[in-house]
């Protein structure tokens, strides 16, 4: 049990008063911003990246780990009490959670989501301990051609699977790749897309891209559509659950965890699909089908556990392969890079203490969350009443401070504003943000592996073929890319008239759309 002893070593590193304090701070900040409308965990970590200039690497990772888990919890509070989920992964929680809150069971909804998050987080983090080193052992044998293929899977996965429209996903990805090209070529020193500007020759800092797209873009977008009448917040007391609630919750927690973790761990998973699957499963298995649609506790317990388990699962590709599969993981990857630590399969060999400490801090953060959130829920709910002008002015304030602190150049602030408008346009036209960030971060890495693979064969294409891992990846990509065609053929054969219109732009497998179809088909019958 090497892993366990390594993990215990990680715990020993975290349990110092200073580190515990930072972990506590992380979960408090994470929960607070998760609750605050308009700010998600990804934006928070992006805004806090400047901290990495002053804090030692251990402490900033502890902080970010806490924010990561805290933000996830805070988001569900918002969707239960406000019924306007900020993140796509809490859409399903809002379905039953808000109904529960409206019928006076807000305390139970919050409790099952907090305890379920704790259970799922703990089990899933334990799963990281056992799964991640296995993947590292395997990944360490892979060469550049295989890595090239894995990065391509991440590209295609984030662009084509996660969003609701494939063509829009690819558009976002390519914009990210183009942004990643800007700067000086690392081999030849040629300047690309710098237009003679010395500020661009240094490459665009990904922190500026992340803050611009997430923070400034969001603030401008909300400003253009600010709700004039504040949404009603359902008041809540201290969360608690009756024996009956416990009895109805524990199985959905475990099932949600089992669904969520694997989806988070594959490089194209995300939290939308498992939360949705968990909702469907609970709806099928429940002994109280009449309550579904009116506030069934199983419909909150399952998806919330799935959401948290999937968040923990994203740590596996992040730590084992250096691949980010959600926005927050992408920013944590940036934090690694800003310390000059190269993420990838060698991370665990080169920085074992750091990796195990991060995992240990996830356990501790998860525990803090449970202890904090049950008594503090009414306080968090008050955050939902913060005056919106101050909230969004504050986001712009911290965004410009963070971007300026990167290099100390006003140029970056103009760039930030430009990227903010790009983020605005993306939100306006329904282009997903994650592929752009993934493209910006992984684009340069992709090019490096591409040139390294072809270097060994002197430019011959055969250098790209690689081993079985690469073949599996390319087969996966082919299936994903050809899926609309396949679906159309199947649809025609199955003679389901209404499926013919699912054009290239709209993958029929998105959770929101499928759920809508599901409720449309089953709703009247049940």
């Amino acid at each position, binding site marked *: 049990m090497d892993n366990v002893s390594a993990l215990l070593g990680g715990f020993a590193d975290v349990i110092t008063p200073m580190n515990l304090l930072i972990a506590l701070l992380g979960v408090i900040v994470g929960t607070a911003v998760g609750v605050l409308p308009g700010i998600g965990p990804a934006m928070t970590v992006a805004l806090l990246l*400047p901290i990495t*200039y*002053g804090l030692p690497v251990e402490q900033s990772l502890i902080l970010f780990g806490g924010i990561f888990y805290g933000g996830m919890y805070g988001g569900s509070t918002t969707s239960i009490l406000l019924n*306007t*989920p*900020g993140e796509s992964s809490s*859409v399903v929680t809002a*379905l039953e959670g*808000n109904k529960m809150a409206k019928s006076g069971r807000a305390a139970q909804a919050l409790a099952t989501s907090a305890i379920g998050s704790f259970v799922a987080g703990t089990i899933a983090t334990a799963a990281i301990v056992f799964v991640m080193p296995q993947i590292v052992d395997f990944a360490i044998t892979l060469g550049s051609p295989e890595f090239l293929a894995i990065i391509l899977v991440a590209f295609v996965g984030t662009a084509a699977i996660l969003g609701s*429209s494939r*063509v829009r996903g690819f*558009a976002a990805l*390519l*914009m990210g*790749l183009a942004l990643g*090209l800007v700067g000086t070529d690392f*081999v*030849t020193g*040629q300047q690309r897309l710098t*237009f003679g500007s010395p500020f661009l020759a240094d490459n665009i800092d990904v922190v500026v891209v992340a803050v611009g797209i997430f923070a400034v873009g*969001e603030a*401008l977008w909300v*400003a*253009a*559509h*600010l*709700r004039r009448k504040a949404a009603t917040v359902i008041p809540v007391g201290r969360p608690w659950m009756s024996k009956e609630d416990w009895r109805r919750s524990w199985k959905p927690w475990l099932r949600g965890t089992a669904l969520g973790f694997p989806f988070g761990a594959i490089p194209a998973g995300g939290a939308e699909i498992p939360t949705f699957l968990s909702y469907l499963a609970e709806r099928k298995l429940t002994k109280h089908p009449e309550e579904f649609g009116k506030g069934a506790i199983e419909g909150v317990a399952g998806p919330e556990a799935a959401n948290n388990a999937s968040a923990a699962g994203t740590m596996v590709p992040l730590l084992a392969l250096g691949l980010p599969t959600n926005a927050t993981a992408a920013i944590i990857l940036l934090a690694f890079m800003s310390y000059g630590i190269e993420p990838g399969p060698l991370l665990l060999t080169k920085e074992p203490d750091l990796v195990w400490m991060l995992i240990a801090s996830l356990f501790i953060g998860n525990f803090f969350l449970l202890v904090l959130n049950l008594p503090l829920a009414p306080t968090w709910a008050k955050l939902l009443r913060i005056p*919106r*002008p101050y909230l*969004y*002015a504050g986001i*712009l*304030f911290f965004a*410009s*401070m963070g971007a300026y602190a990167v290099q100390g150049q*006003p140029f970056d602030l*103009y760039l*930030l*504003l430009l990227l*903010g408008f790009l983020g605005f*346009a993306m*939100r306006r*036209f*329904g282009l997903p943000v994650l592929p752009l960030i993934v493209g910006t971060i992984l684009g340069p890495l992709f*090019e490096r592996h*591409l040139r390294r693979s*072809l*270097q060994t064969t*002197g*430019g011959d294409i055969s250098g790209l073929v690689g081993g079985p891992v690469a073949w599996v990846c390319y087969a996966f990509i082919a299936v994903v890319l050809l899926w609309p065609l396949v679906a159309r053929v199947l649809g025609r054969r199955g003679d389901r008239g209404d499926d013919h219109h699912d*054009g*290239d*732009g*709209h993958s029929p497998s998105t959770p*929101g*759309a499928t759920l*809508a*179809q599901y*409720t449309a088909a089953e*709703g009247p019958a049940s």
Partner: protein
Amino acid sequence: MSTEATPAGAPSSTTPRATGRVRDRAQFGMCAALALAGVVVIADASRIGHVTTSNDPVGPRAMPFVVGVLLIVVAVLYALDVARGGVGEAEAGEDVELAQPSDWRTVGLLAAAFALNAVLIEPLGWVISGALLFFLSAFALGNRHHVRGLAIGIVMSLATFYAFAIGLGVNLPAGILQGIL
């Protein structure tokens, strides 16, 4: 997608279906921007000298060429999707009400406040420019408690200035307040 209903629960409005009729014509602007970006990337790449060595058979031109061509291809596919009636769902959120038309005045004021901060941050220093940024942004977003807005802005910019200088060892510009702060 309407924000009033449960985002995923309303069966009627969630799935944009291709109806063969162009909805939301402004999307073509996004397609044009993508195609333009593709052209710029290709033009820039062809400007680069064709350097390949045995050490680097791919060279610095290949990747931009591929990205540029794909940008143009995606722009065309995107335009086709729009022409067939495809619509991207505008992003919903807690504070977003999509039923109203865009409030360009607020966006413009915010952008102006943001740019003003970029202009002033070095001559006047972060404490002044940051406080102004907060005050003006809050004003643009509808805050009418001017004194309170300004006070919060000053407190925040002072706090971050010292937090950066003392806590992180990063100096934000002091500007004209050099020596006083």
